[in-house]
């Protein structure tokens, strides 16, 4: 069952990544962070699948205790950290964008890459060293040790910090921006809403994990919910960040309309009406800049005329 969950997650994440890479009009800094997040989820699910198939269901591998399965476990812990630290990067990015420096220019993403890909090596290495020295069981499979908190502790800290940032953002959006400009605060609320749904979903498994109910029916319900929260995370992330995203849906719809008109044109071409095809394609190309609206306000550089009122808001906010 876990294998099904992770396989579905990988499939949906790869589809989302394909969508993000194919539609160049969508790309901006927030989407870049999404792409990195999805990559880390794909790698995490892949490593989980490999360790489930090759190690957990193979008692003779566990008995032989090769070094490879401990290395696999180390990378698994590293990828788990990457998942949660990229979520934290998303939260920090939104926080910097909205609360600290509203409508600022493009941020440098180097520090986000460092926090997302580089830093999780630290808890994973400390866990590996501690495990080797003090609790060196076969393939490090046991979950009965408190040494796992070496990895899970920083993850929970990252989730708490993320939650704090997101609540702060909501507070700012609801109080300050609503008074000045309702439309923009609604737009930012849409950006924040997705992250605000996901962070508790990802974190709640750590909170309710120790409290399995005694009642048999409640216990089974608990097991199912925990199973979905743990193994279908990639699917949840891909759905909430990509498939439910308004501008992604608009871009897909646009592409579908384009294909439909092209097929329609090709059929009509057979009736030798060739001139109409040129006008049809040029009409579909024009409105692309309008779909930059949600993303562009994040890296406002005043190029688009409809953003002039947003520029006024910027000057008002920086001196607030």
């Amino acid at each position: 069952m876990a294998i099904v969950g992770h396989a579905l997650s990988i499939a949906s994440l790869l589809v989302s990544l394909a969508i993000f890479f194919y539609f160049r009009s969508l790309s901006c800094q927030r989407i870049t962070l999404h792409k990195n997040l999805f990559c880390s989820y794909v790698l995490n699910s892949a490593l989980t699948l490999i360790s489930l198939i090759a190690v957990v269901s193979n008692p003779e591998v566990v008995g032989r205790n090769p070094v490879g399965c401990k290395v696999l476990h180390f990378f698994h812990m590293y990828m788990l950290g990457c998942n949660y630290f990229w979520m934290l990067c998303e939260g920090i990015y939104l926080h910097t964008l909205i609360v600290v420096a509203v409508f600022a220019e493009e941020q440098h993403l180097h520090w986000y890459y460092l926090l997302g890909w580089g830093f999780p090596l630290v808890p994973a290495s400390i866990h590996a060293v501690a495990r080797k020295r003090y609790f060196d069981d076969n393939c490090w499979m046991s979950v009965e040790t408190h040494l796992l908190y070496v990895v899970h502790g920083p993850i929970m800290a990252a989730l708490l910090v993320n939650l704090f940032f997101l609540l702060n953002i909501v507070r700012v959006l609801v109080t300050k921006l609503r008074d000045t400009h309702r439309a923009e605060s609604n737009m930012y609320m849409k950006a924040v809403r997705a992250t605000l749904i996901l962070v508790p979903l990802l974190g709640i498994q750590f909170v309710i994990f120790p409290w399995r109910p005694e009642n048999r029916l409640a216990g089974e319900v608990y097991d199912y919910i925990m199973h979905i929260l743990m193994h279908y995370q990639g699917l949840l992330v891909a759905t909430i960040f990509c498939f439910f995203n308004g501008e992604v849906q608009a871009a897909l719809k646009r592409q579908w309309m384009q294909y439909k008109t092209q097929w329609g044109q090709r059929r009509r071409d057979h009736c030798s009406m060739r001139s109409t095809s040129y006008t049809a394609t040029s009409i579909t190309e024009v409105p692309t800049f309008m779909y930059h609206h949600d993303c562009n306000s994040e890296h406002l550089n005043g190029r688009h005329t409809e953003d002039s009122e947003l520029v006024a808001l910027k000057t008002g906010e920086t001196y607030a």
Partner: protein
Amino acid sequence: MLFSFCPSCPLTPLSPSLSAAVCQCVSVLACGPHYEYAIEEFCLAKFRLDMQELDQRHWCSWEDTVEPYGELTNCTYLVALKMDCFWPNRLVDEFFIRVHKHYFHDCSMSGRLLRDPPNRILGPFIVVPILVTLLMTALVVWRSKRSEGIV
């Protein structure tokens, strides 16, 4: 059964029933299959009961298994004594190898049940990464602020 030769069998205070039972089956060829049968019937049964009472997870814990194991060893020694065999002998070795294969085959190399390190070691191992995480987050937030030119 060969009840050919039964040397004097004083009932020892330690295991009266054992001595009586062994005396009935002794023969001049005592250190063969009869010895094996004797230790399996009288010693292994008790050991099996003791280990069943102990939770399987604790089979690898020396502190918990030292008593039944010692009793098993002592029992094989007494049976050998009663049957006038040398102790230890090849049959006892094979017997113990079978016992180890059944009860102790997946204990770790050090031979001890794995335990967490004491709290004074575990504590820093957990707290230090959490603090480093918070520091790193603060660093990233501070650097993002600075890159906007807002201090």
